C-alpha cells in the first residue's frame, strides 16, 4: 500500500508570501507534508494545499524568505503533518510545530498523530454537564463553565485577560473529584513576556508538571501560527482520549492566528470576505474549537479557553463575531469596568455561557443558582438602564424604587464582580453574595425566583446578613 520511495523536486517555479509553486511530480498527495532543504542546510516544513496536473502549491511553515527557488530541495513525505506524542510531554515546552525548545531531551514517541484529527461524531458526544468551579464569582455565578466546553475570553489590548486566565488555571477544580488533569498552553504570536508570564504562573502554582506548552512568539514565523493551535490540540487529545485526563487548553492570542490566516489567503490571491478575512474562516476556526468536548464511554475531556483581543474593542469585528458563532459563549471584558478598577472587568451582560443550564442546579451547584443568576442579570440590566437615564435627567428625578436599582448596579459591580486575583470563592459564597445584593431590592420584584427559593435563601428569612 504505502510507497517507500521519496519524491523529490529540485526547483520551485516561483515563491510568493509563504507559498511555493512547484512542478507536479507523479503521486503528490493533497495535504501531504513537504520538507524544504535550503542551501544553508536549514530544513523547513510545508504542506501541499493545491495540486493539479501541472503544478502544486506548497504552504511553507517558516515562510519562503531566503528560499532560493533554483536551489532548494523539496521532498514530499507522503503523509499529512504529524507530531510525536507521549506522556513525557507533560512539563515540557515546544515550538509551534511540536519540537522541544527547553533544552530537554527529544520526546520518545508513544504515537505519531495527525494534527488535523478526524471530527468527533456528534452522536458519540456526551453532553457536558460537570461544573468547574473557578472561584471567580462573575464566572461561576453567571457564566458557569462545564468540562468539555469551549469558552473564549474576548479582550482588548491592555486588558487583564492573561491574569484572569492564569487565575482560572490556578483555581479551577471540579469539586469532590480527584482526577488527572493537565493544562495545554498554546502561545500564538504573543510577546515573549506574555508567553513566559503563563509559564511562570503555572510554575508558581506548582503544576508545571501538568503543563504542556507550545510557544510561537511574535518573533516566530507567521505561517507557523496556522499550525500551533492544531499541534496543541493534538497533544490535548492524546492526553484526554488516550490517557483519560481532563485537559484545559488555553490558547492566546487567537487574533494572531486569524491574521496569519488572512495573510495566507492573500498570498493565495483568494477572493477576500468581510474585512479581508477569508470566507472560510468560520469553518477553519470551527475545526479548531470543535475539538473540545466529552465522548461517551471515555474518561477524559477537553475544555478550551481561547483568548482573543478584539480589534478596536469591536465585538462585531469578524474575529470575535465568527468565534462567538462557534464557541459555547464568551467572556467579554470591559474597558469601562477596568478603568474603574473592577477586577475581573467582566461585562456580564455581553458575556454568556451557553452550557450553563446543564451544569448548575440541585446536585451540581445549588437549586437556586439558575434563578439567582437570572434575577441578578435582570436587576443589573435595569440598574444599567437607569444609570444611562439618570445621566440625562439627573438622579433626583428618579423614584425611590429606581434609586434602589441604581445603587444595586453599583454594589453588584463592587461586591459581586470585583474580587481579588488570588481570592477563591466557593459557589455557595458567590450565591450568598448575590442574595445579599438582591435583598436590597423589594421582595416582590424578585419575580424570577420561585417563592420556595425566596423562603429558603433570602437573607430576610434565613435571618442572616441582610442589608435591608
Amino acid at each position, binding site marked *: 500500500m504505502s510507497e517507500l520511495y521519496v519524491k523529490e523536486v529540485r526547483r520551485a517555479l516561483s515563491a510568493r508570501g509563504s507559498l511555493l509553486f512547484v512542478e507536479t511530480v*507523479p*503521486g503528490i*498527495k*493533497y*495535504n*501531504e507534508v513537504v520538507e524544504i532543504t535550503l542551501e544553508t542546510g536549514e530544513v523547513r516544513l510545508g504542506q501541499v494545499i493545491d*495540486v*493539479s*496536473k501541472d503544478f502544486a502549491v506548497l504552504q511553507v511553515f517558516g515562510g519562503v524568505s531566503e528560499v532560493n527557488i533554483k536551489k532548494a530541495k523539496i521532498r514530499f513525505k507522503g*503523509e*499529512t503533518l504529524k507530531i510525536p506524542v507521549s506522556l513525557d510531554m507533560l512539563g515540557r515546552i515546544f515550538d509551534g510545530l511540536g519540537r522541544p525548545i527547553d533544552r530537554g531531551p527529544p520526546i520518545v514517541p508513544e504515537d505519531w498523530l495527525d494534527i488535523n484529527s*478526524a*471530527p*468527533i*461524531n*456528534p*452522536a*458519540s*458526544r456526551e*453532553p457536558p454537564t460537570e461544573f468547574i468551579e473557578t472561584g471567580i464569582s462573575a464566572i461561576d455565578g453567571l457564566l458557569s463553565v462545564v468540562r*468539555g*466546553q469551549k469558552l473564549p475570553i474576548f479582550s482588548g489590548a491592555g486588558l487583564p485577560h492573561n491574569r484572569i486566565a492564569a487565575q482560572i488555571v490556578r483555581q479551577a477544580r471540579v469539586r469532590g473529584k480527584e482526577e488527572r488533569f493537565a493544562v495545554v498552553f498554546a502561545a500564538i504570536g504573543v510577546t515573549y513576556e506574555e508567553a513566559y508570564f503563563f509559564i511562570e504562573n503555572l510554575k508558581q502554582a506548582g503544576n508545571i508538571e501538568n503543563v504542556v506548552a507550545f510557544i510561537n512568539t511574535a518573533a516566530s514565523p507567521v505561517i507557523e501560527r496556522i499550525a500551533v493551535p492544531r499541534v496543541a490540540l493534538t497533544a490535548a487529545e492524546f492526553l484526554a482520549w488516550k490517557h483519560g485526563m481532563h485537559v484545559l487548553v488555553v490558547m492566546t492570542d487567537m487574533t494572531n492566528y486569524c491574521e496569519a490566516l488572512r495573510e495566507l489567503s492573500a498570498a493565495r490571491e*483568494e*477572493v*477576500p470576505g*468581510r474585512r479581508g478575512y477569508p*470566507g*472560510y474562516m*468560520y*469553518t477553519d476556526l*470551527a*475545526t479548531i474549537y*470543535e*475539538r*473540545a*468536548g466529552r465522548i*461517551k464511554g471515555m474518561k477524559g475531556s477537553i475544555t478550551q479557553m481561547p483568548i482573543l483581543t478584539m480589534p478596536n474593542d469591536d465585538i*462585531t469585528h*469578524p474575529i470575535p*463575531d465568527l468565534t*462567538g*458563532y*462557534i464557541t*459555547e*459563549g*464568551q467572556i467579554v471584558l470591559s474597558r469601562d469596568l477596568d478603568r474603574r478598577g473592577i477586577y475581573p472587568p467582566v461585562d456580564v*451582560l*455581553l458575556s454568556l455561557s451557553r452550557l450553563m443550564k*446543564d451544569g448548575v442546579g440541585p446536585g451540581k451547584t445549588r437549586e437556586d443558582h*439558575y434563578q439567582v443568576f*437570572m434575577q441578578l*442579570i*435582570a436587576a443589573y*440590566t435595569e440598574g444599567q438602564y437607569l444609570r444611562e*437615564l439618570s445621566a*440625562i*435627567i*439627573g438622579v433626583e*428625578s428618579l423614584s425611590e424604587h429606581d434609586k434602589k436599582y441604581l445603587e444595586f448596579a453599583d454594589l453588584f459591580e463592587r461586591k459581586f464582580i470585583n474580587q481579588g486575583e488570588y481570592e477563591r470563592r466557593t459557589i455557595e459564597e458567590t450565591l450568598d453574595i448575590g442574595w445579599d445584593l438582591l435583598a436590597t431590592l423589594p421582595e416582590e420584584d424578585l*419575580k424570577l425566583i420561585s417563592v420556595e427559593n425566596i423562603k429558603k435563601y433570602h437573607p430576610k428569612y434565613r435571618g442572616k446578613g441582610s442589608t435591608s
Partner: protein
Amino acid sequence: MVVGKIKRVSGPLVVAEGMRGSMVYEVVYVGEERLIGEIIGLQGEDAFIQVYEDTSGLRVGEPVEGSGSLLSAELGPGIVGKVYDGLQRPLSVIGELIGPFVKRGVKLPALPRDVKWPFTRNRDLKVGDKVGPGDVLGVVKETPLIDHLIMIPPGMHGELKELVNDGDYTIEDTIAVIESEGRKIELTMLQKWPVRKPRPYTRRLEPTEPLITGQRVIDMMFPIARGGKAAVPGGFGSGKTVLLQTLTKWARTRLNIYVGCGERGNEMADALHSFLKLKDPASGRPLAEKAVFVANTSNMPVAARETSVFLGVTIGEYFRDMGYDVLMVADSTSRWAEAMREISARLEEMPGEEGFPAYLGSRLAEFYERSGRVDCLGRPKRAGSLTIIGAVSPPGADFSEPVTQNTLRYIGTLIALDVSLANRRHFPAVSWLLSYSRYVETIERSWRKKFPQWRELRDRALSILQRESELMEIVRLVGPDALPEADKLLLDVAKMIREDFLQQNAFHPIDSYCPPEKTVLMLDVIMKFYDHSSKALLSGVPLDKIRALPVKVKIARMKEVPPEEFGKVYNGLINEIKSSIESLVKGG
C-alpha cells in the same frame, strides 16, 4: 460506468478528466478510497466535483467513477429517531461500529436491512385493483407515535397483482407486485428519492391552519402557518438554536426534523439527549419517537452542508406525503450558504455580493419552496404539510447582508432576534418591532373558532408595544415624570406584556410549552388589567395606588401555573382585578 481521473485537488473541490457521459449532480466515487462526491459542473470532458469527505491524501491520476445516479435519500421504516450525516449515513450506528471519530470512506446503509417491521396491509385494496403513486399499501407501526404508511412511490402505477398478508418484513422484502404495461414490478418498503428534487403532490392548499408551537410570541404575535415558511435571523447568542430546538420539541406536529448544518457538536449532542428524555405533551412518549436528526457539524466536510439541508427536506416531504403535519428546521442556513460560497470561489465563478454566488437566491428559493400544505398523491385522500423554519446567522448581526436579505424574499414569517434583548436576557429575544407574519389573515379564521378574541388581543398588544417604543424616545430625553398618567400606565402595561407574557424560559419545566388556551387567557388578563386601570385613572385614582396592587405580583407569576389549573386561576385573577380596582375607585 464512466471512469475518469483526478486532474486537480483543491480543498473539497476535485476536477476529474475523461468524464464524458456524466451528468450534473451525479454521485461519483473519488480516488482509491472511493470518497463520495457529486458533480456540480461539467466542461468538455472535465467534471467539477464537490467531495463530501476530507480530501487529504488524494493524488492526481487516481480514478473517479461515476455511479449513474443522483444523490438520493433512502425512505422507509427505520428512519425515525435516527441521526444522519449529510449523506444519510447513520451516525449513531457508525459511532457504535467504528468509534467516536468520523472516518472517511465509511459506507453504511441509511436504513437497517435486517430489522423486520410489523406490516399491516391496507384492507381496502384487493388484487386486481388499479393502483397509482401515493396509494397506501399498508402501514408499519414504526414507533408508538409514528404510523409509517407504506406508499406506492411517485411515478409508478399499474394493476395490483400481489399484496402480502400482515406479518413481519424487512425493507427489502417484496410486499407487493404490480403489473404495468406487461411488466411486473416488485415493491418493497424502501423508496429512494433524489434529494434535490421536490416530491410530487396532487395540489397545493392554502396555509389556513396555524402551527401551534407553544411559544407565546409566535402563536399570539407572529404566527406560522402549517405548511408555511419562516426565518429566524439573529446574531450569535440571540437564541436561534434554543428557539429552533424548542419548536421541534413542542410544536404540535406528527413528525419533526432537526437539521444541524455547520453548527456545534455539543448542541447536537444536547438535542439528541434531551429528545430522549423529554416527553411529548400529547402522548407522554419520548420526543425522539417523532423526530429525525441530520447533523453535519461545523467541523465536518463543508460540501455536505448542502446535502444535509436537502436530505432534511426530502424526509419531510416523504412524511408529508403520508398526510402528516411535519416541521423541519435548519440551523443554520447561513452555514450552507457559506459552503456554497466556498465551492463557488474554488470554481472561480463570478462572485456576487460579499462573494456569494449569483445563484444564492434561487438556491434558497428552491429550499423554502418545498414547504407547503398539499393534497397528497394517492388514496385514501389525505392532506399533509411541511413547515420549514431556517435560522440565519448574519455576520455582525447585520440583517442587510445577502443571506438574510435573500431569505426575506421567500418566507412568510420573520422571527427577528435582537442581540440587545438577549443581552438583557429577554428570551425569546424576538423583536416585536422588526418581526412580522404574513399568515395572520389566512389563519385568523381558524383561531377564531376557539378563541374569538385572538386577533383583537394580538393587535392591541402589538400597538401598545409600538406606542411604548415611541414614548421611550421621550422618556430618554426628559425622563418618565414628564409623561401624563395615562402614558405612564401604558408603559407599565407594555412592561407587563414584555416580561409577564412575551418572555418565556425554554428550560422552565412548566413554562417551556404554553398551550394556546393558556396563551390567550394570559394576554387577556393583562388587557383586562389595562382596561380597568385606565377607567380608574379617569375617575381620579392615582397611578401609584394601581402600581401597588398585589394582583400585579400574581399576574407576573401566571407563567408558573400548570396549564390544567390555569382556567381557575384566570377566573380568580379577573375577579381580583375587578374588585381591587373598584375598591380603589370607591376608596378614592
